[in-house]
């Protein structure tokens, strides 16, 4: 009964196209944002900031990026980490080589570089489809990391290819503590998530989904398939690029190209699938799941007192098992589970 849309009539199309057409959702979102921006900074510990919240937000952003490409535009990519790497290393070089470069601009430029690389590697998608494309995107993954390792210029000739992110300073304010970095990341993620939501509820988003669902029909209707796919690659890579830069600047600080390896790409793909393909909210759910699950698991298995060699493996098995379990329970991901939950709540206490 709490969750009722009864009585909420939409009188204009404008209100109907709102991001959260139901009032309860709107209030809940507002509450979450208030908590995230105002309450959490005061109550969370540095551990929560730097080990959970910051990576959670950064991965959410990357997952959001991949979700645009895979979930909305239907192009499976296994090269997400490569685009993140481009974003990070490009931002680093902009900061390094352009005196007085504002950091936010460097992030954006980093994202744009990633977008351009994304477009270049997205070109084959015009002909190649499905898992063929997925496997081919591994070319991106390996090539980009190889390139960053091979060309010393990208890493400022550091002998080992490791870069150290510069200090973050915006308008004279230094973002040093985990708390400050958290707020920065949160701000960026919120803005980008809003933009993404806008995109997917307007024509760009519909063009992506149309191409995903049936590209021949989309073409007949008048969408330009090439342009649509490439925009998806560009936007997705842009998001991933920003996420990669934040990963370097706000999370680890010092990175080598290898940090953006295949493993990371996969991790982000899990987030997207577990969270729900084609759902902005799902990206966040997925990121939370993949970031938190191992932590929670290792804490739980820990109390069993088994030797670590056993617990580590059990953890791995449970992790794999849970992925399968969730897929079986809801193949469309946590976002759909959430939606079904809401629908049930709406019907409650009267079934159907």
């Amino acid at each position: 009964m709490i969750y009722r849309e009864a009585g909420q009539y939409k009188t204009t199309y404008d209100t109907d196209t709102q991001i959260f057409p139901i009032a309860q959702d709107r209030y809940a979102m507002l509450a979450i944002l208030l908590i995230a921006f105002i309450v959490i900074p005061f109550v969370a510990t540095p551990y929560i900031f730097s080990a959970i919240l910051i990576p959670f937000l950064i991965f959410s952003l990357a997952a959001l990026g991949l979700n645009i490409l895979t979930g909305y535009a239907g192009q499976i990519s296994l090269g997400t980490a490569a685009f993140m790497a481009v974003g990070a290393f490009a931002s680093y070089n902009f900061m390094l080589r352009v005196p007085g470069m504002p950091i936010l601009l460097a992030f954006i430029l980093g994202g744009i570089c990633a977008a351009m690389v994304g477009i270049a590697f997205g070109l084959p998608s015009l002909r190649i489809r499905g898992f063929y494309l997925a496997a081919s995107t591994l070319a991106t993954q390996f090539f980009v990391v190889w390139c960053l390792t091979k060309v010393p210029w990208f890493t400022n000739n550091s002998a080992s290819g490791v870069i150290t992110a510069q200090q973050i300073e915006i308008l004279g304010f230094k973002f040093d503590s985990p708390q400050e970095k958290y707020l920065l990341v949160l701000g960026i993620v919120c803005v980008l998530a809003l933009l993404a939501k806008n995109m997917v509820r307007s024509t760009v988003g519909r063009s992506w989904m149309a191409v995903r669902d049936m590209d021949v029909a989309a073409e007949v209707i008048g969408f330009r398939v090439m342009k649509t796919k490439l925009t998806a690659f560009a936007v997705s890579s842009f998001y991933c690029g920003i996420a990669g830069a934040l990963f370097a600047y706000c999370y680890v600080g010092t990175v080598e190209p290898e940090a953006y390896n295949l493993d990371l790409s996969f991790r982000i793909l899990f987030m997207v699938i577990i969270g729900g393909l084609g759902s902005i909210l799902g990206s966040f759910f997925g990121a939370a799941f993949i970031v938190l699950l191992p932590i929670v698991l290792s804490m739980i298995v820990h109390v069993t007192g088994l030797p670590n060699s056993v617990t580590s493996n059990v953890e791995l098995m449970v992790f794999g098992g849970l992925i399968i379990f969730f897929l079986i329970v809801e193949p469309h991901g946590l976002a759909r589970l959430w939606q079904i939950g809401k629908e049930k709540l709406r019907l409650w206490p009267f079934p159907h």
Partner: protein
Amino acid sequence: MSDSAQRKIGDVILKADNVSLSFGGVKALTNISFDVREHEIRAIIGPNGAGKSSMLNVINGVYHPQEGTITYRGEQRKDMDTHAAAKSGIARTFQNIALFTGMSVLDNIMTGRNLKIKSTFVEQALWIGRARREEMENRRVVEEIIDFLQLQHVRKTPVARLPYGIKKRVELARALAAEPSMLLLDEPMAGMNVEEKQDMCRFVLDTNDQFGTTIVLIEHDMGVVMDISDRVAVLDYGKKIGDGTPDEVRSNPEVIKAYLGAH
């Protein structure tokens, strides 16, 4: 007929001359000539595998014929290009429903309006000014179509969940959303009962009446075809065996033999 006079059937706007299309060894179309006049309802009938759908595919550029030419609005060309066809106002529905299964009914119909969108990608991302206005404007048009086709109750349903007949109607709605000047319908009434077919006929006739849309229709229900079309072309395994008004076609012995059977 009185209302067809009202509709003022005009000149030929689309003309296919000696079109041939084959896939490997299969000859889908052999030397077909076929024309469509402005504002008319033009039907194509024929047995299964006769090449009806292929003909539509040639008209809007999904298939490219090996021989022959197509003249559309005075412009003669070897083949059409899907995008160009869409731009010049040709919309269509498909035999094997080609809806975007992951999207809601509303979104599906909205995609039909994509060519009307002028706002850029950045404007849409920021959801400001033109983008928002356009969205509202298009939404209004789409809602009208939804009302027209009585799809209100499924507006927000993902199309994958819809029963077959409703899907067909959503497809029509999507095509109408483009405000086409020519509408190609490939078996729009398959899988419907009489009542629903009646509704569908009404939609088609009204579209034709109110907007003057030219309609090319493939349908196996002879009742429907004979009742609503102005001219009927009959294909039989890639060849055209008859063309004319419903009455002419109905009495054409070759057509009876190949398609209608003794009724």
